[in-house]
């Protein structure tokens, strides 16, 4: 349903802007401890970057960079990272998502919590971006 947008200014501008949007999404993810941001916001911005390419380049050309089948895989991988971290902490003897029980040797408890929260945020990032792109692909799919 979505074809290539026939305007060279829009095409070039969105093609230049999209990698910077994805880079800013990664900044919002990894700097979310000490500034506004985090997994959900970063995932939303990453999905917006992918959707910008989908809208301007058309689905065929943007599928070469980000295939349609990849989005649900990324989303479910994020859910598995989130739930798997919680189950690992339960196997270590703690409550669900009790980061102090993560099996990292040679790390202090505060560093356990730092890395645990970062892993959870990465899971949320992958889940949100994958599911948002999946919703967009389903909304704009070809109708028989």
């Amino acid at each position, binding site marked *: *349903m979505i074809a290539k947008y026939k305007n060279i200014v829009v095409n070039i501008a969105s093609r230049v802007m999209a990698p910077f949007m994805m880079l800013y999404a990664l900044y*919002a993810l990894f700097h979310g401890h000490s500034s*506004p*941001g*985090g997994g*959900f*916001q970063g995932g*939303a*911005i990453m*999905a*917006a970057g992918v*959707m910008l390419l989908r*809208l301007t380049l058309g689905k065929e050309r943007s599928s070469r960079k980000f295939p349609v089948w990849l989005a649900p895989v990324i989303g479910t991988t994020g859910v598995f990272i989130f739930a798997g971290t919680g189950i690992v902490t339960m196997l270590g003897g703690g409550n669900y998502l009790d980061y102090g029980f993560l099996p990292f040797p040679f790390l202090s408890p505060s560093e356990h919590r730092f890395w645990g929260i970062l892993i959870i945020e990465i899971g949320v990032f992958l889940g949100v971006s994958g599911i*948002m792109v999946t*919703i*967009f692909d389903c*909304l*704009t799919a070809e109708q028989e």
Partner: protein
Amino acid sequence: MSWEIGLIIVVVVIISAIVALSIRDLLAASFVLMAYSFGMALLYTELGAPDVGFTEAAVGAGLSGVFIIAALYYMKRRSDD
């Protein structure tokens, strides 16, 4: 100085909400709804909650607008109300 900026943002948000409810063209209504979301993001940031404002600007003004416009392909453009 702060409350004047807040007053301006509140007036913009209220006007855009009324316009989004009363306009007949659904595409224009979705764009005005995105403007409303962006005003709400500015209002949250002005009230001292930059995290909520960030989320509102990313999801409310960006993604939900794209979703609404994509869903608009499946219906006719003018409202019947």
